[in-house]
């Protein structure tokens, strides 16, 4: 059996495809749109419009980067407030032009730093959560690697959350949990298990709807399965009227951690 720690290692493995790999294979005619119109452009988030099996979709991805140089320029996929605000702008355009939103997540969390705080990291994430809760077009979020904290959730308020076999999604990174709970970052292995952060854990408690096989590392095959599933699911979700869609989306999260009374 694969342990949670092994899944985290796989999600972080050098050479594992980042968001760009999936975007190249899933979407055609993709045009990247830059900037939040308020402060700047955050390279940790790639956003724009393209086609999925011919149909226009808005795509928003947390991109860690592949080469060292690119990783640095993309801040290792940790977004600043301007990144979340760029995503928000694109989501509002998706609503205007009645096209669904596909988010791809791979991040160690929202960036923590003086600038991010000064520009309102908390406010930026909060606004995304509230706007996504009411967005009247379908949203599907796919976790392809790591996803931690509000920095992942800020693109995760979706109608469907899908995860790759070795993707992980957690309230905090295992190292962060270990250093806060046990004052010992070295206990990350234990934290991986304790946090219940694997795709399989989240499927079991209804926080993810589907887990995709990684086909023993054949990621072209993964893309092909993902593409078919996205196309089918977006057709199904697009059949729902705006009211039904947002009511169901709220109900999806409303049930999490609630009490049966």
């Amino acid at each position: 059996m694969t342990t949670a720690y092994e899944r985290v290692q796989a999600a972080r493995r050098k050479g594992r495809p980042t968001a760009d790999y999936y975007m190249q294979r899933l979407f055609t005619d993709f045009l990247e749109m830059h900037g939040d119109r308020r402060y700047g452009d955050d390279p940790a988030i790639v956003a724009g419009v393209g086609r999925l099996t011919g149909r226009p979709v808005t795509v928003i991805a947390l991109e860690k980067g592949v080469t060292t140089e690119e990783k640095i320029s993309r801040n290792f996929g940790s977004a600043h407030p301007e990144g979340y605000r760029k995503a928000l702008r694109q989501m509002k355009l998706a609503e205007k032009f009645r096209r669904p939103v596909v988010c791809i997540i791979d991040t160690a969390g929202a960036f923590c730093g003086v600038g991010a705080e000064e520009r309102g990291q908390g406010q930026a994430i909060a606004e995304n959560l509230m706007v996504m809760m009411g967005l009247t077009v379908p949203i599907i979020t796919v976790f392809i690697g790591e996803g931690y904290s509000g920095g992942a959730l800020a693109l995760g308020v979706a109608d469907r959350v899908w995860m790759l076999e070795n993707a992980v999604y957690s309230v905090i990174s295992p190292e962060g949990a270990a250093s806060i709970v046990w004052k010992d970052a070295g206990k990350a292995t234990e934290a991986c298990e304790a946090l219940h952060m694997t795709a399989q854990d989240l499927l079991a408690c209804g926080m993810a709807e589907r887990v995709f096989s990684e086909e023993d590392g054949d990621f072209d095959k993964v893309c092909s399965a993902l593409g078919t599933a996205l196309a089918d699911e977006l057709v199904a979700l697009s059949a729902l009227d705006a009211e039904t869609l947002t009511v169901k989306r709220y109900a999806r999260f409303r049930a999490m951690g609630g009490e049966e009374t």
Partner: protein
Amino acid sequence: MINKALFKKPNNRLEGEQEAARDAEPTVVCAECKDTLPRAAVAGTDFVCPRCGTPLAMGARERIRWLTDEGSFQETETGHRAVDRLGFPGYAEKLVKAQRDSGEPEGVLTGLAAVDGEPCALFVMEPYFIMGSMGAVVGEKITRLFELATQECLPVIGYTVSGGARIQEGMFSLMQMAKTSGAVLRHSEKGLLYAAVLTHPTTGGVVASFAMEADVILAEPKAQIGFTGPRVIEQTMRQKLPPGFQRSEFMLQKGFIDRIVPRNAQKKELSMLLKLHGRGGRA
């Protein structure tokens, strides 16, 4: 790998709940000047440090007593108790201690109240319960309060204090950010007022959800307000923090809060806000 713990029914009342042990404590420490004060010296007042003027930590129940019209507070959703869904090491013991420290079963109190004659729905987070950390019960109770206020066409006043997510509840904690945001949105769409008062400290997942989603965001003086706490930024980024970083005064200057309101003006300003925005009831 299906974990049976995830399906545990959330009904197990925790053993060892006790009545407020904290009220018996004779002293209170000022977070700013570290002065230790006899509790009797500030009880019955606005609860500010007589030496430096900083607002002192106030338990949720005593804040409600201080803020609301006498006899007006009707508590709602009193039966919720945290569930150790993940079987997280040490969590059950931590909950027992938090209940002893705070004299409350969980990290937030909710209810209906009147402030200066103005009816409202009110939530007040509890600093003595793991520093208002957001677990499933906190999210659920706040969500239910917003749903009740939406149904009854009432404005919401919320006092926040939080160290952030309750890590021991894992993803169940993170999801409360989305859940509460959905409830705030539905309340807002009905044209109803939500005013938040951010107290020291309001950080992490609470800042990145309902604390920053209010129509009017007030803050107590000198409160720490931010997504990532200053120590984490200093340690991980080795960045020197500017003076007053993340304090209310700093956040006001950066444009993220509307007003800083000292304790002795809060009741008056909140009742003015309630009157200025009407009682709702438009829907």
